[in-house]
């Protein structure tokens, strides 16, 4: 059954969209990641203009992070002051990202910006995840427990001025690093249509030294606000948020996430991570090949002032 997407200005199959939402939701539930970094490329692969894919996916992530975040809220596993500071940086980053997006869109280079960002981040994250999970798997075979990775010292960063006490994280650190991290992730969120948890979570653990029990909740907390602002900024500046598209992805996404979360609990963590790493690398390689190989059609048409 076809449905007309009023902003993407194309017809797409409803079941394909719900199915894609379900598949990515399933994986995100199973692996505990946001899934935006898989959904945006998938939307581009089925022909949604990249600019619309990014903005609509940000809208969908608001829904999935609210539903995920509520559980952490009730468990009091959110460091709210930290979340608000990350969010402040994130809002500024989202604004900058959308402005950059708008500028490059006028120059006809936004698709390139999106693709390159994805190739770089999927490549780096996929490689790191794959390496770590393979090390764990090999170590488990040998029967020797793996040493938890000892991150380097970053304490001088945390001792910058404007220090603040974060009681739930049991930290007394400068607000500058969380602001900078929030800003950086906000920019990525606006350009890539992701929540940015895959950057935020490691940054919180290894740079801010937050205890792991508040990391995911706090990350989701700030993702809600950052993706909400990305959605609104894109709607205002670029008119690229397709609510019909986002809504269909939400339906599939939330259902898939519930199933995935249940299945995920029964599977081994490091094998899951290796599998996810392969998927991430696969998507990254596909995007890279699309950039490197000569396209079948060298020309493209864009309506002045609108379109992808």
């Amino acid at each position, binding site marked *: 059954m076809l449905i*007309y997407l009023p902003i993407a200005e194309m017809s797409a199959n409803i079941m394909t969209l719900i199915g894609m939402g379900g598949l990515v939701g399933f994986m995100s539930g199973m692996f505990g990641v946001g899934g935006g970094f898989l959904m945006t490329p998938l939307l581009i692969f089925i022909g949604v203009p990249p600019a619309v894919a990014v903005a609509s996916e940000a*809208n969908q992530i608001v829904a999935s992070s609210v539903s995920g975040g509520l559980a952490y809220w009730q468990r009091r596993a959110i460091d709210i002051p930290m979340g608000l500071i990350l969010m402040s940086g994130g809002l500024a980053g989202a604004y900058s990202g959308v402005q950059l997006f708008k500028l490059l869109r006028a120059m006809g280079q936004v698709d390139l910006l999106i693709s390159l960002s994805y190739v770089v981040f999927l490549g780096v994250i996929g490689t790191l995840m794959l390496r770590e999970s393979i090390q764990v798997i090999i170590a488990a075979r040998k029967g020797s427990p793996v040493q938890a990775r000892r991150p380097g010292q970053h304490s001088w960063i945390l001792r910058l001025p404007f220090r603040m006490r974060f009681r739930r994280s049991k930290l007394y650190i400068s607000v500058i690093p969380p602001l900078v991290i929030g800003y950086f992730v906000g920019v990525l969120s606006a350009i890539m249509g992701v929540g940015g948890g895959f950057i935020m979570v490691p940054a919180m653990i290894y740079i801010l030294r937050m205890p792991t029990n508040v990391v995911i909740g706090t990350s989701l907390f700030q993702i809600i606000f950052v993706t909400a602002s990305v959605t609104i900024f894109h709607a205002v500046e670029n008119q690229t948020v397709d609510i019909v598209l986002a*809504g269909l992805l939400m339906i599939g996404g939330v259902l898939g996430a519930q199933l995935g979360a249940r299945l995920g609990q029964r599977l081994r963590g490091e094998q899951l991570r290796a599998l996810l790493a392969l998927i991430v690398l696969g998507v990254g390689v596909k995007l890279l090949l699309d950039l490197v190989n000569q396209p079948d059609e060298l020309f493209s048409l864009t309506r002045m002032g609108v379109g992808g």
Partner: protein
Amino acid sequence: MMRFTLAALLVLMPLLVSRPALATEFQNVLVTDVSKDQISIRSNYSGETLLLFGAIDTQPYGEADGVVVVLRGPAQDIILRKKNKQFGIWVNGPAYTFGDLPSFYAVASSRPIADLLPNARRAELGIGADVLKASNLDPKTPHPTPGESEAVAAFLRLKQQADLFAAQSDAVEIIHGKLFRAEINLPAGMPVGAYTTEFFAFQKGTLIGYQKGELPVDIVGAGHILHEAAYNMSLLYGIFGVAVAVFMGWAVAIIFRRR
């Protein structure tokens, strides 16, 4: 980035310039109508076939031996970009601006339009997307650069591939030189706006009848509201999108927690 208004556009001009006002006597020869007085794009729109038909008054000039129907979409400014390889990857390079060209252009005719009347005359009347290509070869026009010629060809090709430029030479049926019916296929992704219909009747290559009409194409229903809101009330639209998402996320969290 290179960006310039296409000099070769001059060769596309026949499509754009307002044609010499066609005498009203021509208009009295043709009585025409369209199967629909407006096209409504609903959320499940997948294209349709439009029927355009009419009668020819044979009193003034006799029977018609050729009929051409043109459906033209609202004018658009289009940017054509060509990818080239830089630092090992394919990126958008030269940009060509095609200003004020019809977003949709379909010609239905009773015979191949090239057989009906000479190219120069077709260019005058604005009949046929291929007039563009043909007049491109016209020695009188200033010579476009190879890049510009290639851009014009690519523009036409992409428009045809998207079913936005079309020519069908057997889509008009003439009955006894007095009645005719034409079919034009409308694609699913047709641009919205004010379309014009034009009907031409010919006798041995001479225009004997002309008629013009309007055909609005609009998105209707929820899609229309969302489309309008997205462009005219962007902030509200964005907030609405976020509100839907928050509600959906919250509702799902509640539903699944109960289990």
